[in-house]
Structures are given as structure tokens and as C-alpha cells.
């Protein structure tokens, strides 16, 4: 464990979770006793605490985890896990992977939700999970109190990643947007994707670092479809061997697409709107 701590100390100039920062991130809350755990987990030892689940956090560029526990006379402990990722997109991404569609959603941080004995939310580059074995209304209220205090202490801009601004708001399925930071749809050449499910289809944008890279990805996809003439310079309907019917168009360094299409006209209209919004940026 010493070596991990040494590595942690090495990263002092680069990370916010120094001792004094941890105090700030886990504020004192009237009525609760706070215990900040000494150990901070990094990609090197995240498996020690969350086992196989660590893989997903690492895939979203997890950087460190700090933990505190709050208790009062009725609650043995509420554990607050503060995961810091490389950026807000990744924190949002890992949050969306764990988000329950049936949860009661909250306006804490960027978005959050509460279940019995658990409250999760994301805020800036942080994904915050509160969990307890205690039960009851008092516990649920305590989860909210602590989550709000931590969210306020983080001082983060918790707007959804700006890439989602390109997607029209109307008819979006609420609380369903998600971010994939590699191998979108299972294809290595489709990397970073922002996805928004709608009533009639699911729209996505895939970002590349350059137009050339986007063209290269499109070529690979055309090869997979065994149609090298496909350039996707205009809205193109294809039948993907695995995904099914897909609508796809390359706009500079961004691919705009639709899958799970129940209404092709609507999908085309959404695609056009997304392109217009992207062009305005």
C-alpha cells in the first residue's frame, strides 16, 4: 500500500484530492459526524475496493477515488464515494452507464437519482455515489442532505456535455442521453459517441479529431459493409449486419447517425436539425 501512497504523493501537483481538498469536498454537515478515509484509490488499486466494476470506471478515464462516511444517532453510516474522472464527459459517461431508468431523478449536480439506500449523481468531472445499509425515511432525507452539501462543495459547472446541445430537445426520452468513449456500437473505428434516444429513433454523433480521421473511419465502415463506394457525404441508409438499419452522414469531422429507427422520416428530420445545429457552432 505504501507504494500506492507514494505514487499518489507523486501526483500531488496534478490532482485535487489533497488532504485539505478532501476536507473541502466532504464538508462538515450540521447533525452529522464526518469521517474522511485516509486512503485515496487510483487506477492502480481501484480493483482493491470495487473489484470487476473497476473495469468500467477505468474505461471512462477514472483518476482517483476518495471516500468519506457520515453518521448520526440513527444512521450507522452513509458512505460517500467521490470518483474523479479525467473530464466531465467521462464522469457523465460512467454515471449514465449505472443510471437506473426507473429511479426518482433529482436536480443535484448535473443530474442524480435516488433509490432505497443509494443516491448517485454527477457533477463536472466527479461521479458521486452515496450508499448505506440503513433504511427508512430519515435515511433517504439524510442521503439528500449530504448529496446537496457535497454537490455545493464541489463548485462544478454541471451542464450536460456541450455536444448534446446539437440534439433537438423535443421528443427526447428523458434521462436517457449517454456518452460512449470507445468502440461505439462495437466498432473500433467509431470511437467517441454522444447518444440521444428519441421516441422514434436513437440519434448519435461520433467525434473524430480531424476530417481525415472521420473519412478513414467511414472507409473502414464502408469496407465492412462491402460497399467501397459509400462515402456518407449525404444521408445514407444502410443495413448494418449487426445493428440493423442505420442512417449515417459525415459532416466534417463528425458523423451523425440514427439507429433503432421506427420512423425514417423523423430520423431524417432529426439528422438535418442536428447538422444545422452543428453548423452554427
Amino acid at each position: 500500500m505504501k507504494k500506492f501512497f507514494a505514487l499518489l504523493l507523486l501526483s500531488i501537483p496534478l490532482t485535487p484530492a489533497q488532504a485539505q481538498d478532501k476536507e473541502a469536498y466532504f464538508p462538515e454537515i450540521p447533525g452529522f459526524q464526518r469521517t474522511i478515509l485516509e486512503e485515496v484509490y487510483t487506477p492502480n488499486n481501484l480493483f482493491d475496493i470495487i473489484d470487476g466494476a473497476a473495469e468500467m470506471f477505468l474505461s471512462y478515464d477514472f483518476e482517483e477515488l476518495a471516500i468519506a462516511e457520515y453518521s448520526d444517532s440513527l444512521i450507522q453510516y452513509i458512505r460517500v464515494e467521490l470518483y474523479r474522472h479525467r473530464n466531465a464527459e467521462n464522469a457523465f459517461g460512467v454515471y449514465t452507464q449505472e443510471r437506473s431508468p426507473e429511479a426518482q431523478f433529482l436536480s443535484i449536480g448535473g443530474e442524480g437519482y435516488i433509490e432505497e439506500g443509494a443516491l448517485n449523481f454527477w457533477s463536472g468531472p466527479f461521479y458521486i455515489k452515496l450508499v448505506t445499509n440503513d433504511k427508512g425515511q430519515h435515511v433517504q432525507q439524510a442521503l439528500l442532505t449530504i448529496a446537496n452539501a457535497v454537490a455545493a462543495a464541489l463548485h462544478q459547472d454541471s451542464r450536460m456535455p456541450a455536444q448534446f446541445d446539437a440534439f433537438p430537445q423535443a421528443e427526447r426520452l428523458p434521462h436517457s442521453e449517454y456518452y460512449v468513449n470507445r468502440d461505439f456500437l462495437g466498432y473500433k473505428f467509431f470511437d467517441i459517441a454522444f447518444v440521444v434516444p428519441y421516441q422514434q429513433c436513437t440519434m448519435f454523433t461520433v467525434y473524430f479529431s480531424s476530417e481525415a480521421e472521420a473519412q478513414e473511419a467511414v472507409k473502414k465502415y464502408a469496407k465492412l459493409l462491402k460497399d467501397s463506394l459509400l462515402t456518407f457525404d449525404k444521408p445514407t441508409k444502410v443495413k448494418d449486419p449487426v445493428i440493423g438499419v442505420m442512417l449515417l452522414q459525415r459532416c466534417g469531422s463528425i458523423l451523425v447517425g440514427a439507429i433503432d429507427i421506427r420512423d425514417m422520416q423523423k430520423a431524417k428530420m432529426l439528422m438535418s436539425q442536428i447538422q444545422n445545429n452543428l453548423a452554427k457552432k
Partner: protein
Amino acid sequence: MVTSQMSKGKIMEEFDRRKFLKATLSTAAALSVPISFAQSKDKKKKPITRVLGKTGLRIPVISYGVMLANNPALLRAAYDAGITHFDTAHSYQNGRNEEMIGEVLSKVPRKSYILATKIKPAEHDRTKGTIGPASTKEAFLNRLDISLKRLKTDYVDILYLHGISTQEEAYHPEMLAALEEAKKSGKTHFIGVSTHRNVEGVLEAVTEEGIHDVVLASINFQNQNPKRLREVTAAASKAGIGIIAMKTMAGGYYDKERTKPVNYKAALKWVLEDPAVTTCIAGLTAFEHLQENISVNYDITLTDEERASLIPDTQSKGMACDGCEQCIQSCRYHLSILPDAMRAYMYTYGYGATLKAREIVDEGKEEFQVCKSCDICSAHCVKNLPISERVKDVARLENVPIEFLA
């Protein structure tokens, strides 16, 4: 107020949950279309299979650890390509992982696949290896019922106590009673434990008592003592314990920056050289990985070239300096500490040997200072190691108190 913060279930009531699931899973439509990757299964060739200890289950040597997957089409493609054993956990993606598996596999015959899930004790300090009083049999079995509902099945084939590292955890009375009751009730056919740490110790403990059927263990080419590991797995296998390997990619990358991926096929084959290991639960997120993994199902021979590719990260191009000293010539100050600094970096991030690295930093203190204060680095590495960045990184060790170094 609680109510003012919540948008409650109201919004969710506005649309059909089934529609939501279909949309968010996004590729559900794929389930009804032919899947080209299934064609990679050569019908003339049979996959290599092994028997999982006393369970008698015969499983292809490559299985699917679904923990990273968020793509149901990939899961279905894996099934169609001949993978029959799928591994998840109650806690993965807060239950979404089990739900996705349930959505996909409920559409194929239940007996055509082997399903395993893992459940944690309700109160568990993994770092200390202790299980707290809230970890009752009832709480565990309640979690199992939730998992079965998500998985859309009446039973799992293997149920593990998730993430243990000590004998005490393996034989915790409440947890053992819960596993045995789950088996007795038919909610699982076999029971086991999963372990990331103290793998040899856990295997020995389980072998000794013979209560568990299966151990899911972290086994990979970076194990510090493969000879000892294989002695332990052989003894467990002889006692009828089925052994399944996970974390076979050892983190997946050779370098700290995660730019140099491990040779997937070679890593799997290295594990399968041990006949006591029945199968590897390989994680994957792309069809390309699936095809690579599937190919191992038909050929597990580790070639010399593949073995060489598994040289531990400390020796790999990403981490190791060859000591050619050409960087000294290209450095405007001809700093002789550069190769040593690369070694210190390797000690730090490769071995975690920070004390040894600190010695190097202390010995070359003056030259490290010169390097740190130089704005434009002229030193060039023939292996393209980022010299300036690594020198500056490792030089920070001088600020770390000795008592924190290892």
C-alpha cells in the same frame, strides 16, 4: 424539501419503460437480423472445451466477462459465435449489466448457455477482508432474487461470493449459509467465490474444505510467481474445484498512459497453458476483440512470438530504457542522468519501487535540477520515450517523505 428536488417518477411515467429500454439499449433491433460474426464459427471445427471441475460443466476455453459491455448486439454476436458462458455481477453498472444480459439471453434457450453472477456481502471491507454484521443470509438472498429478476431466469449456473481475499470471508457462516441455501433451492446450481487478491491463499482455503464448486480468480501473465500459482491451481483442480480465470489482460495495457495494449490472444493463451484453468472470462467491447477471442477457442497454442510479446511492462518498449545513452549526446547539457531517470521512472510506475527510484533522484540531484529548469528539451530517445516529461515526473520524488516510499 425532498419533493421539490425530485422530478419523481412522474417523468418516467410519461413513456413506456419497455420503449425506454429498447431505445437505450439501442441495438435491440439487431437481435432479429443475421449476425455476420456468427459466421466466424467454423461449423466443421469444434471449439476447445474443458470440464469445470466437479460441476461437470463443459465449457469452451473462452467465455465472456460482460462487465464492460453496453452493447446487446455484441453479447448476442458472442452467443452466436459459440461462446456459452457469460459472467456478470449484481453490482456491475448498478444492475444494468444484468438487465442487458436478461434482455438478450432470455430470447435463446436457457439450457444453451451457462450464466454466472456474483454477489457482495451487504457490508464488506475488501481492503481489510472483513465482512460486517449487516451481511446477513437474508440480505444476500434478497440480492440474488433481484439478480434473477434482472437476468430473467429462475436460476444461475454459478453463484459467487464476490471479491474475497481471505479464508475467513470464504467461510463466513452467514455467506456460506446463503450460498448453500441458494443451491438447495435451485436458484443456483453451483457455488463459488471470486478473488482478485491473495488468489493462491483463497484457492488453498477452498481446496482444503471442498465446499465450493468453483473459484473465479485473477490470473494473468504478470503473476509474480507462476510456478507457485500453477502448483496451487493443480491441487485445487485435483480436488475437483473448477477454476475460471479473469483479469487475464492484466489491466489491458503495458504502459501507464494506456497507449500500448496487451496482446489479447497471447494473454489468453498464457492462462490456458495451465490445464487446471477451465476457461477465461474475457471482457470485450468491440467485434474485433470478439473475433480475436473466438479464434483462441480453436487454437490455444502460445507461439514463441506471442510469448515474447507478453514480456512484462517493465521490459516493454513503453517503459524500458535500453541504456544506449544516445539521449545524452542529444541533450544540450549532455546530462548523464537521463538513462538513470528513465530507469527511475520504470522503477516507479513499472515496479512501484519508489524508494529505489528516489535513490536515483537523490544521486543525480543537480542534473535533475538542470533538466527541470530547461524549457526546450533537445534530448532525443531512439525509442521515442518522452524524456523531458519523465524526468520532470520522477524528479518530484524528492518532495515525497522517505517514510512513504516503498
